[in-house]
């Protein structure tokens, strides 16, 4: 085995482990916001590791360049989607877990709700 294959296999293994624990957080954690932050962070990082590892292992331009492009794309879109989902969940009225201590988005959410109420 050449050295780039070994480095790529290590990257892919780390990425798969991150994916696994992110999805385990999706199953185990208590409410929507905890699940969202655990799963989004871990799965984004894990998928980027898998993509970069594939680019290193294959070392052919047709696959490597597309893998790097796809990694950049996932890095941009995944936090954006998670942000939109958290906002949509809060404004749709999903309650926080009862042991959560701070809720700094409440004032802003009330403001948004009153504005949309006036618009309609």
């Amino acid at each position, binding site marked *: 085995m050449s050295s780039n294959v070994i480095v790529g*296999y290590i990257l*892919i*293994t780390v*990425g*798969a*482990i991150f*994916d*696994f624990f*992110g*999805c*385990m957080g*999706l*199953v185990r954690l208590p409410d*929507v916001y905890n*699940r*969202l932050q655990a*799963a*989004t962070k871990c*799965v*984004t990082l*894990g*998928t980027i590791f*898998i*993509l970069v590892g*594939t680019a290193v*292992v*294959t070392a*052919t331009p*047709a*696959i490597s360049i*597309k*893998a790097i*492009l*796809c990694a950049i*794309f*996932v890095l941009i*879109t*995944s936090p*954006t*989607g*998670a942000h*939109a*989902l958290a*906002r*949509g*969940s809060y*404004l*749709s009225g*999903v309650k926080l877990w009862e042991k959560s201590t701070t809720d700094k988005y409440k004032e802003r959410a009330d403001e948004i709700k009153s504005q*949309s109420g006036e618009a309609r």
Partner: protein
Amino acid sequence: MTFAYFIAGILAIACFMCLYRIGHGPTPSDRTVAIDILGTVVVGFVCLSAMVMKKDFYMNLAIAWALISFIGTIALAKHLEGRRFDE
């Protein structure tokens, strides 16, 4: 090749955890989060297929899947928020 099967097994278990949360989630937000995460895991899975088969069109599939998963997530988030899709 054994290594690729091992990684594919780990990712398959991750996909089944996402499917559990899609089927069992108490609120619609849980299901939407799980759909988003499942899309991202499948991108990694398709990329692993590209590494095993050594065909470059699998990467086109991965890029298209990431794009469509992102658009679906944004649309479902706007639907959860109670807005129409063209606002």
